[in-house]
């Protein structure tokens, strides 16, 4: 092992006539009440103004890509939970769809629509946290507490569908582990009924609030060119005025059957990011409503379809496992990870809450992936942080960090 290098402060010399001769080095993080997650920022300060910032990440690196090389496909789903843990279902679904693409599994329409309900709920819960945390960081706690009970309701829906709340492991390759219960649909209806009012009130608290606007406008801005060059995707790119959305550009899970708009901003600053996320929550609500209506249209046997017919990858029903030979064999093979994955290279991406969440899966025909790479939007756009905060006040940099929606799990994989 090499010697641990001492972290040296790199003070910047200030121009003659400044009160201080050198800048001050401030360690923001790795754990700090103002950084919602484990990452460190070493900032050079001239008074309250940031001269330069250097980010250190990797504090919760868990070697997911290495882990994935020794696991059968279905055991990788819980790993994806822990990427962006504010919207685990989006990661789970992205992963299932990647596998389905490689395995050639075609999912029924009802599964697609149910997935859209879950994915858009996840998007709402993610944006809800991000936007209300921006409020918290600018001194307005009320909104955060107010919307939290609706995230709770979303988590209850997850719980009803898959049994867990935060790290969901929701769905399976080919569909869902079970059909949605009546309670799940009742809770969904409750959400659709009550949430618009809450979101409206949330917007009333913030959107035209003078103090809030003054704190967010013209801070942490980025131009469309720079954002593209930095590999921004998702709400952060759209806030800069580029209408790139994976759901529209390369539709998956039957997004092409739906009508929705992609909100865009213009300046790419904190305020635009806030507005874009709020706009997306309205679109997600509409998508959930449309999907729920489509789900209700299925009648008879079709109304009970919740998975594709893929016996080699989708677990058979438990009662059949006890009584039928074939099902018992499949069950055993799947659980023990003894199914060979077809050879191939596949890249699939979904519109995660933070942007394009991509899965690059290489299979050499073995039982586990030969290589799996996650394209994690947070990791890619966090490099722009020093450019975004250069010259701004320290307190603005804190808001910039929360409005970028950095999730430590996604940064570090």
């Amino acid at each position, binding site marked *: 092992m090499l010697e641990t290098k001492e972290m040296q402060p790199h003070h910047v010399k200030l121009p003659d006539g400044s009160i201080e001769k050198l800048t001050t080095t401030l360690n923001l993080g790795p754990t700090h009440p103002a950084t919602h997650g484990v990452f460190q920022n070493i900032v050079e300060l001239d008074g309250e103004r940031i001269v330069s910032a250097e980010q250190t990440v990797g504090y919760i690196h868990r070697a997911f890509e290495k882990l994935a090389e020794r696991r059968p496909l279905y055991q990788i789903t819980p790993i994806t939970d822990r990427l962006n843990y504010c919207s685990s279902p989006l990661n789970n679904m992205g992963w299932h769809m990647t596998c389905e693409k490689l395995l050639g599994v075609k999912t029924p329409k009802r599964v697609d629509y149910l997935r859209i309900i879950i994915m858009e709920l996840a998007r709402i819960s993610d944006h809800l946290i991000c936007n209300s945390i921006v409020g918290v960081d600018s001194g307005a706690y009320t909104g955060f507490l107010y919307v939290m009970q609706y995230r709770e309701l979303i988590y209850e829906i997850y719980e009803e569908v898959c049994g867990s709340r935060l790290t969901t492991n929701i769905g399976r390759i080919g569909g869902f582990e079970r059909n949605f219960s009546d309670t799940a649909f009742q809770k969904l209806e409750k959400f659709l009924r009550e949430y618009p009012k809450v979101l409206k009130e949330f917007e009333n608290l913030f959107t035209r609030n003078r103090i809030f606007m003054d704190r967010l406008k013209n801070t942490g801005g980025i131009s469309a060119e720079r954002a593209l*060059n930095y*590999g921004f995707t998702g709400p952060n790119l759209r806030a800069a005025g580029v209408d790139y959305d994976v759901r529209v550009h390369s539709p998956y899970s039957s997004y092409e059957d739906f009508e929705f708009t992609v909100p865009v901003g213009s300046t790419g600053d904190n305020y635009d990011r806030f507005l874009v996320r709020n706009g997306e929550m309205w679109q997600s609500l509409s998508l959930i409503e449309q999907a729920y209506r489509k789900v209700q249209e299925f009648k008879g046997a079709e109304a009970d379809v919740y998975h594709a017919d893929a016996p080699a990858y989708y677990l058979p029903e438990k009662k059949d496992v006890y009584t039928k030979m074939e099902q018992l064999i499949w069950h055993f093979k799947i659980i023990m990870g003894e199914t060979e994955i077809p050879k191939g290279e596949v890249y699939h991406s979904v519109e995660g809450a933070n942007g394009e969440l991509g899965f690059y899966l290489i299979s050499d025909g073995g039982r586990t992936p030969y290589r799996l790479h996650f394209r994690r939007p947070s990791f*890619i756009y966090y490099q722009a942080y020093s450019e975004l905060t250069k010259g701004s006040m320290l307190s603005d940099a804190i808001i910039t960090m929360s409005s970028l929606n950095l999730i430590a799990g996604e940064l570090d994989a």
Partner: protein
Amino acid sequence: MALTNEIIQQQLTEKFGEQVYNFESPFGLLTFQSSKEMNLKVLQFLYENENLQFTFLTDLCAVHYPDNKGQELAVVYLLHNLRENIRVRYKIFTDIQQPDIFTATKLFEAANWMERETYDFFGVNFIGHPNLKRVLNADEMDYFPLRKEYPLEDQTRIDKDDAMFGRGGSIF
């Protein structure tokens, strides 16, 4: 006229001739290779050519093929033309003994951390990178953990017996 895989392939072959090869389209995604010395020229051509305009670097990662002697490490670029909404995957292979590759940070700011990550896990040395140091792993690490010679579990551990689970020993 919409950009298609055929047009991209034709443009690339017109410009580089035999130097770009192994064209294929798994799952509709145009994939091709070149020698590692060519990487910047190809990336720049894809970026600047007015018909191609691959100005968005979606992803960059490496893959280790230990059996591919002399060409053990593959570096994979995934580029996106957002206007035409088409992607290409571009691969270069390098010897693991001397994994030197030109950096793409001059073209894409996004490549900065992606290349650091690739260096961190595979030891690919990106020549000209402004700040090539580890990004996710600890600075004092002296190996590249995603290379295949490193088994997943710590083989020096003696406090548990993995043999019962079929996981004892190296993965090879």
